[in-house]
Protein backbone atom coordinates (compact mmCIF):
# COMPACT_ATOMS: atom_id res chain seq x y z
CA UNK A 1 0.00 0.00 0.00
CA UNK A 2 3.09 2.27 -0.14
CA UNK A 3 1.84 3.59 -3.47
CA UNK A 4 -1.14 5.17 -1.70
CA UNK A 5 1.32 7.69 -0.20
CA UNK A 6 3.06 8.66 -3.49
CA UNK A 7 1.82 12.05 -4.64
CA UNK A 8 1.61 11.35 -8.38
CA UNK A 9 2.05 7.76 -9.54
CA UNK A 10 2.35 8.81 -13.20
CA UNK A 11 5.53 10.79 -12.61
CA UNK A 12 7.13 8.49 -10.01
CA UNK A 13 10.03 6.66 -11.72
CA UNK A 14 9.92 3.70 -9.34
CA UNK A 15 6.22 3.20 -8.71
CA UNK A 16 4.96 3.66 -12.29
CA UNK A 17 6.58 0.50 -13.74
CA UNK A 18 5.83 -1.46 -10.54
CA UNK A 19 2.13 -0.59 -10.62
CA UNK A 20 2.12 -1.15 -14.41
CA UNK A 21 3.53 -4.64 -13.89
CA UNK A 22 1.02 -5.39 -11.13
CA UNK A 23 -1.84 -4.31 -13.41
CA UNK A 24 -0.50 -6.42 -16.29
CA UNK A 25 -0.32 -9.50 -14.04
CA UNK A 26 -3.80 -8.79 -12.66
CA UNK A 27 -5.27 -8.55 -16.15
CA UNK A 28 -3.55 -11.79 -17.16
CA UNK A 29 -4.80 -13.46 -13.96
CA UNK A 30 -8.37 -12.44 -14.77
CA UNK A 31 -8.13 -13.84 -18.32
CA UNK A 32 -6.54 -17.11 -17.21
CA UNK A 33 -8.98 -17.46 -14.30
CA UNK A 34 -11.89 -17.37 -16.77
CA UNK A 35 -10.09 -19.87 -19.01
CA UNK A 36 -9.27 -22.19 -16.09
CA UNK A 37 -12.81 -21.99 -14.72
CA UNK A 38 -14.37 -22.68 -18.12
CA UNK A 39 -12.17 -25.79 -18.42
CA UNK A 40 -12.73 -27.03 -14.88
CA UNK A 41 -16.30 -25.99 -13.98
CA UNK A 42 -17.72 -24.60 -17.22
CA UNK A 43 -19.07 -21.26 -18.37
CA UNK A 44 -22.34 -22.54 -19.86
CA UNK A 45 -25.22 -23.79 -17.66
CA UNK A 46 -25.22 -27.40 -18.96
CA UNK A 47 -21.47 -27.84 -18.37
CA UNK A 48 -21.68 -26.30 -14.87
CA UNK A 49 -24.65 -28.57 -14.06
CA UNK A 50 -22.67 -31.63 -15.19
CA UNK A 51 -19.75 -30.57 -12.98
CA UNK A 52 -21.97 -30.00 -9.93
CA UNK A 53 -24.56 -32.79 -10.25
CA UNK A 54 -22.92 -35.29 -12.58
CA UNK A 55 -24.52 -36.93 -15.62
CA UNK A 56 -25.70 -40.53 -15.46
CA UNK A 57 -26.02 -40.88 -19.24
CA UNK A 58 -22.39 -39.84 -19.75
CA UNK A 59 -21.23 -41.66 -16.57
CA UNK A 60 -19.91 -38.42 -15.07
CA UNK A 61 -19.72 -38.38 -11.25
CA UNK A 62 -20.82 -35.19 -9.44
CA UNK A 63 -18.16 -33.14 -7.68
CA UNK A 64 -17.69 -34.04 -4.01
CA UNK A 65 -18.46 -31.47 -1.32
CA UNK A 66 -14.82 -31.55 -0.18
CA UNK A 67 -13.50 -30.85 -3.70
CA UNK A 68 -15.97 -28.01 -4.16
CA UNK A 69 -14.98 -26.53 -0.78
CA UNK A 70 -11.32 -26.66 -1.81
CA UNK A 71 -12.14 -24.79 -5.03
CA UNK A 72 -14.21 -22.20 -3.14
CA UNK A 73 -11.52 -21.78 -0.46
CA UNK A 74 -8.84 -21.03 -3.08
CA UNK A 75 -11.14 -18.85 -5.23
CA UNK A 76 -12.03 -16.77 -2.16
CA UNK A 77 -8.36 -16.14 -1.39
CA UNK A 78 -7.42 -15.18 -4.95
CA UNK A 79 -10.52 -13.01 -5.50
CA UNK A 80 -9.87 -11.25 -2.17
CA UNK A 81 -6.23 -10.45 -2.89
CA UNK A 82 -6.80 -9.55 -6.55
CA UNK A 83 -9.72 -7.22 -5.88
CA UNK A 84 -8.08 -5.64 -2.84
CA UNK A 85 -4.88 -4.68 -4.70
CA UNK A 86 -6.75 -3.71 -7.87
CA UNK A 87 -9.21 -1.54 -5.91
CA UNK A 88 -6.36 0.21 -4.07
CA UNK A 89 -4.62 1.04 -7.39
CA UNK A 90 -7.86 1.99 -9.11
CA UNK A 91 -8.93 4.25 -6.22
CA UNK A 92 -5.56 6.01 -6.51
CA UNK A 93 -5.66 6.50 -10.30
CA UNK A 94 -9.30 7.05 -11.22
CA UNK A 95 -10.49 10.66 -11.17
CA UNK A 96 -14.24 10.19 -10.92
CA UNK A 97 -15.27 9.50 -7.32
CA UNK A 98 -18.74 8.24 -8.22
CA UNK A 99 -17.46 5.87 -10.94
CA UNK A 100 -14.73 4.42 -8.75
CA UNK A 101 -17.23 3.72 -5.94
CA UNK A 102 -19.66 2.05 -8.39
CA UNK A 103 -16.90 -0.09 -9.98
CA UNK A 104 -15.36 -1.17 -6.65
CA UNK A 105 -18.75 -1.95 -5.07
CA UNK A 106 -19.94 -3.83 -8.17
CA UNK A 107 -16.79 -5.95 -8.47
CA UNK A 108 -16.64 -6.77 -4.76
CA UNK A 109 -20.36 -7.53 -4.28
CA UNK A 110 -20.60 -9.68 -7.42
CA UNK A 111 -17.46 -11.63 -6.42
CA UNK A 112 -18.85 -12.29 -2.92
CA UNK A 113 -22.23 -13.40 -4.36
CA UNK A 114 -20.45 -15.59 -6.96
CA UNK A 115 -18.58 -17.48 -4.24
CA UNK A 116 -21.68 -17.99 -2.08
CA UNK A 117 -23.90 -18.94 -5.04
CA UNK A 118 -21.57 -21.69 -6.28
CA UNK A 119 -21.94 -23.51 -2.95
CA UNK A 120 -25.66 -22.71 -2.91
CA UNK A 121 -26.04 -24.23 -6.39
CA UNK A 122 -24.52 -27.45 -5.03
CA UNK A 123 -26.41 -27.53 -1.71
CA UNK A 124 -29.68 -25.65 -2.19
CA UNK A 125 -31.03 -25.24 -5.73
CA UNK A 126 -29.80 -25.28 -9.33
CA UNK A 127 -31.15 -21.73 -9.78
CA UNK A 128 -28.00 -20.46 -8.03
CA UNK A 129 -25.97 -21.88 -10.90
CA UNK A 130 -27.26 -19.01 -13.06
CA UNK A 131 -26.54 -16.52 -10.26
CA UNK A 132 -22.97 -17.85 -10.10
CA UNK A 133 -22.54 -17.58 -13.90
CA UNK A 134 -23.84 -14.00 -13.91
CA UNK A 135 -21.87 -12.78 -10.89
CA UNK A 136 -18.66 -14.56 -11.89
CA UNK A 137 -18.85 -12.88 -15.31
CA UNK A 138 -19.70 -9.47 -13.84
CA UNK A 139 -16.82 -9.38 -11.36
CA UNK A 140 -14.31 -10.46 -13.98
CA UNK A 141 -15.54 -7.94 -16.57
CA UNK A 142 -15.69 -5.08 -14.05
CA UNK A 143 -12.27 -5.92 -12.60
CA UNK A 144 -10.84 -6.12 -16.13
CA UNK A 145 -12.33 -2.69 -16.86
CA UNK A 146 -10.79 -1.29 -13.66
CA UNK A 147 -7.41 -2.72 -14.69
CA UNK A 148 -7.58 -1.30 -18.22
CA UNK A 149 -8.70 2.12 -16.98
CA UNK A 150 -5.91 2.17 -14.38
CA UNK A 151 -3.31 1.26 -17.03
CA UNK A 152 -4.69 3.99 -19.32
CA UNK A 153 -4.52 6.57 -16.54
CA UNK A 154 -1.01 5.45 -15.57
CA UNK A 155 0.54 5.64 -19.07
CA UNK A 156 -1.47 8.24 -20.99
CA UNK A 157 0.57 11.24 -22.08
Amino acid sequence: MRFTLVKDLRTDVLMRPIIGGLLLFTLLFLIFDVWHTSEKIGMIPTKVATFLYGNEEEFVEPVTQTSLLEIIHMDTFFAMMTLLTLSAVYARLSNSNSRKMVMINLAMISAIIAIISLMSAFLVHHFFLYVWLGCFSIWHVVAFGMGIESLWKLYRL
Partner: protein
Amino acid sequence: MKNAYRAAILYFTFFAVMLLVSGTWLFATKIGLSPDAVTLYYLGNEALFQMPKSSEGLLEIVLPHLGGMGLFIMVSAHFMLFAPKNRHQWAKITAIILFTTALLDIFSPYAIINGFAFFNWVKLISFFLLQSLALFLLGLVFLSAFEGVVKH
Protein backbone atom coordinates in the same frame (compact mmCIF):
# COMPACT_ATOMS: atom_id res chain seq x y z
CA MET B 1 -8.29 7.84 4.08
CA LYS B 2 -10.48 7.97 0.97
CA ASN B 3 -13.92 6.33 1.02
CA ALA B 4 -12.89 4.04 -1.85
CA TYR B 5 -10.08 2.60 0.31
CA ARG B 6 -12.46 2.16 3.23
CA ALA B 7 -14.93 0.32 0.98
CA ALA B 8 -12.13 -1.98 -0.24
CA ILE B 9 -11.09 -2.72 3.36
CA LEU B 10 -14.68 -3.43 4.45
CA TYR B 11 -15.13 -5.85 1.54
CA PHE B 12 -11.77 -7.41 2.37
CA THR B 13 -13.12 -8.30 5.83
CA PHE B 14 -16.17 -9.99 4.24
CA PHE B 15 -13.93 -12.02 1.95
CA ALA B 16 -11.69 -12.90 4.88
CA VAL B 17 -14.63 -14.15 6.95
CA MET B 18 -15.72 -16.28 3.97
CA LEU B 19 -12.17 -17.63 3.77
CA LEU B 20 -12.29 -18.57 7.47
CA VAL B 21 -15.74 -20.16 7.13
CA SER B 22 -14.74 -22.22 4.07
CA GLY B 23 -11.50 -23.24 5.84
CA THR B 24 -13.37 -24.40 8.97
CA TRP B 25 -15.99 -26.18 6.88
CA LEU B 26 -13.25 -27.91 4.89
CA PHE B 27 -11.45 -28.90 8.11
CA ALA B 28 -14.68 -30.35 9.56
CA THR B 29 -15.56 -32.24 6.36
CA LYS B 30 -12.13 -33.49 5.39
CA ILE B 31 -10.40 -34.06 8.73
CA GLY B 32 -12.99 -33.86 11.52
CA LEU B 33 -13.30 -31.83 14.68
CA SER B 34 -12.13 -34.34 17.31
CA PRO B 35 -8.57 -35.42 18.25
CA ASP B 36 -9.33 -39.01 17.16
CA ALA B 37 -10.56 -37.82 13.77
CA VAL B 38 -7.34 -35.81 13.32
CA THR B 39 -5.22 -38.86 14.18
CA LEU B 40 -7.25 -41.07 11.84
CA TYR B 41 -6.93 -38.58 8.99
CA TYR B 42 -3.14 -38.34 9.22
CA LEU B 43 -2.22 -41.87 10.35
CA GLY B 44 -4.92 -43.74 8.43
CA ASN B 45 -6.53 -47.07 9.36
CA GLU B 46 -6.09 -50.33 7.43
CA ALA B 47 -9.41 -51.72 8.66
CA LEU B 48 -11.20 -48.65 7.25
CA PHE B 49 -9.09 -48.71 4.04
CA GLN B 50 -7.81 -45.23 4.87
CA MET B 51 -4.26 -44.51 3.73
CA PRO B 52 -1.84 -42.64 6.03
CA LYS B 53 -0.62 -39.24 4.82
CA SER B 54 2.93 -39.05 3.43
CA SER B 55 5.43 -36.19 3.85
CA GLU B 56 5.05 -35.38 0.15
CA GLY B 57 1.26 -35.31 0.49
CA LEU B 58 1.51 -32.90 3.41
CA LEU B 59 3.90 -30.70 1.45
CA GLU B 60 1.18 -30.01 -1.12
CA ILE B 61 -0.97 -28.53 1.67
CA VAL B 62 1.87 -26.87 3.59
CA LEU B 63 3.36 -24.95 0.66
CA PRO B 64 0.32 -22.88 -0.43
CA HIS B 65 -0.65 -22.26 3.20
CA LEU B 66 2.79 -20.91 4.12
CA GLY B 67 2.49 -18.30 1.38
CA GLY B 68 -1.22 -17.67 1.82
CA MET B 69 -1.40 -17.44 5.61
CA GLY B 70 1.67 -15.22 5.88
CA LEU B 71 0.22 -12.85 3.30
CA PHE B 72 -3.26 -12.97 4.84
CA ILE B 73 -2.06 -12.13 8.37
CA MET B 74 0.25 -9.38 7.13
CA VAL B 75 -2.43 -7.75 4.96
CA SER B 76 -5.11 -7.99 7.69
CA ALA B 77 -2.83 -6.66 10.42
CA HIS B 78 -1.32 -3.83 8.36
CA PHE B 79 -4.76 -2.24 7.93
CA MET B 80 -4.54 -1.45 11.65
CA LEU B 81 -2.06 1.29 10.67
CA PHE B 82 -5.15 3.28 9.71
CA ALA B 83 -6.77 2.64 13.14
CA PRO B 84 -6.45 4.83 16.25
CA LYS B 85 -3.10 4.29 18.00
CA ASN B 86 -4.65 2.81 21.15
CA ARG B 87 -5.63 -0.29 19.13
CA HIS B 88 -2.14 -0.82 17.66
CA GLN B 89 -0.92 -2.76 20.71
CA TRP B 90 -3.87 -5.18 20.47
CA ALA B 91 -3.26 -5.67 16.78
CA LYS B 92 0.47 -6.25 17.33
CA ILE B 93 -0.07 -8.93 19.98
CA THR B 94 -2.82 -10.59 17.90
CA ALA B 95 -0.62 -10.64 14.78
CA ILE B 96 2.32 -12.21 16.65
CA ILE B 97 0.09 -14.93 18.17
CA LEU B 98 -1.53 -15.45 14.75
CA PHE B 99 1.82 -16.05 13.05
CA THR B 100 2.79 -18.49 15.84
CA THR B 101 -0.48 -20.45 15.76
CA ALA B 102 -0.40 -20.52 11.94
CA LEU B 103 3.05 -22.16 12.09
CA LEU B 104 1.81 -24.71 14.65
CA ASP B 105 -1.29 -25.41 12.56
CA ILE B 106 0.72 -25.87 9.37
CA PHE B 107 3.55 -28.03 10.78
CA SER B 108 1.84 -30.14 13.49
CA PRO B 109 0.75 -32.81 10.94
CA TYR B 110 4.47 -33.59 10.38
CA ALA B 111 4.81 -34.32 14.11
CA ILE B 112 1.70 -36.55 14.00
CA ILE B 113 2.94 -38.71 11.11
CA ASN B 114 6.37 -38.99 12.77
CA GLY B 115 5.05 -40.64 15.94
CA PHE B 116 4.08 -37.69 18.14
CA ALA B 117 0.39 -38.58 18.30
CA PHE B 118 -0.42 -35.99 20.98
CA PHE B 119 0.13 -33.28 18.34
CA ASN B 120 -3.45 -34.05 17.24
CA TRP B 121 -4.42 -31.76 20.14
CA VAL B 122 -1.89 -29.14 19.00
CA LYS B 123 -3.39 -29.25 15.50
CA LEU B 124 -6.94 -28.83 16.80
CA ILE B 125 -6.18 -26.11 19.37
CA SER B 126 -3.92 -24.12 17.01
CA PHE B 127 -6.54 -24.32 14.25
CA PHE B 128 -9.35 -22.97 16.45
CA LEU B 129 -7.10 -20.35 18.03
CA LEU B 130 -6.06 -19.25 14.54
CA GLN B 131 -9.67 -18.92 13.37
CA SER B 132 -10.79 -17.10 16.54
CA LEU B 133 -7.88 -14.63 16.59
CA ALA B 134 -8.21 -13.98 12.85
CA LEU B 135 -11.89 -13.14 13.45
CA PHE B 136 -10.89 -10.85 16.33
CA LEU B 137 -8.32 -9.05 14.16
CA LEU B 138 -10.80 -8.71 11.30
CA GLY B 139 -13.29 -7.30 13.80
CA LEU B 140 -10.76 -4.63 14.79
CA VAL B 141 -10.06 -3.84 11.11
CA PHE B 142 -13.78 -3.68 10.29
CA LEU B 143 -14.47 -1.44 13.30
CA SER B 144 -11.69 0.98 12.37
CA ALA B 145 -12.75 1.20 8.70
CA PHE B 146 -16.45 1.47 9.60
CA GLU B 147 -15.82 4.20 12.18
CA GLY B 148 -13.98 6.09 9.43
CA VAL B 149 -16.98 5.80 7.09
CA VAL B 150 -19.36 7.04 9.79
CA LYS B 151 -17.14 9.99 10.77
CA HIS B 152 -16.39 10.93 7.15
